[in-house]
């Protein structure tokens, strides 16, 4: 018999006296802790999943906010050559003057509104 086999043969299973009740009590505590940890894990996972789902689908986000970021006339963004730039700027100016005129009328500045419209007509004539 080689030495290592002798060493292994010398290994006898040790018998130790374990306090069974104490062991069971500790084990039950661990089981309870494990159950609680599982519940916490599943609840947290569910919350994270729901949050991600809400973020991805943008549930409850108002649609009108999207409209603010999207121009109704997309050609302004796409067509950027020189021929279109002039037309676009004219349209934008017209819109600006119109809005400003409405604003002035609402606020009660009637003559200022008339002056503004005259100015716009002048600019239009100059450009033509």
């Amino acid at each position, binding site marked *: 018999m*080689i*030495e*290592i*086999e002798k*060493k*292994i043969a*010398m*290994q006898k*299973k*040790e*018998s*130790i006296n*374990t306090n*069974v009740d104490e*062991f*069971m009590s*500790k*084990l039950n505590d*661990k*089981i309870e802790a*494990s159950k609680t940890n599982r519940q916490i894990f599943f609840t947290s996972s569910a919350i994270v999943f729901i949050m991600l789902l809400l973020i991805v689908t943008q549930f409850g986000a108002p649609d009108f906010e999207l409209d603010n970021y999207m121009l109704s006339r997309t050609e302004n963004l796409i067509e950027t050559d020189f021929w279109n730039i002039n037309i676009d700027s004219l349209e934008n100016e017209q819109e600006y003057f119109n809005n400003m005129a409405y604003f002035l009328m609402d606020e009660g500045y009637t003559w200022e509104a008339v002056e503004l419209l005259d100015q716009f007509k002048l600019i239009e004539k100059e450009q033509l």
Partner: protein
Amino acid sequence: MSLTIKDEMKNDHELIKIFQKGDKGAYDRLVRKYLHNTVGFFYTITGDRMVAEDLAQDVFLKLFNNLRNFKFQSAFSTYLYRINLNTANSWFARNKWKNLLHLDQIINQQKKDTSVAKEWLNKELWDAISKLPKKQRSVVVMRVAEELPYKEISIITGMSENTAKVNFHHALQTLKKILNND
């Protein structure tokens, strides 16, 4: 009157069925039945009573979480041995660095002749066993700590009986080399 292995197996399976129906008392009875054997198994490997009890608690916790899925295809003792073996392998893996650095081997050589000799011998042997490849280590652990026959080891580890024998033989050779080098 002593119970036969078949009777034991039947009893265990009945307890598991009761547990699967929701009675935790059946689980407690199973734990009490196999407690000393499991703690003894880990005490043989670790040589530390506290560690052995902690590892046994891990085993029974795993058992509690998985016993509902027990398929009744094998004896409960085989199932428990498998959990013991996996837990022991995990423990060996965790202690790999500690063993590599020899952090807990600062025992003076002179003490070898005193009463610590047996403890030293055990420690030296288990440190060497922990360095074996997983398959060889599994066979050696079951052979040495549980004194199981090759047939049962083959069922637990999922290898053939001959492969288990060959692995044990190779393990002995490797252990011899490791211990001689040390």
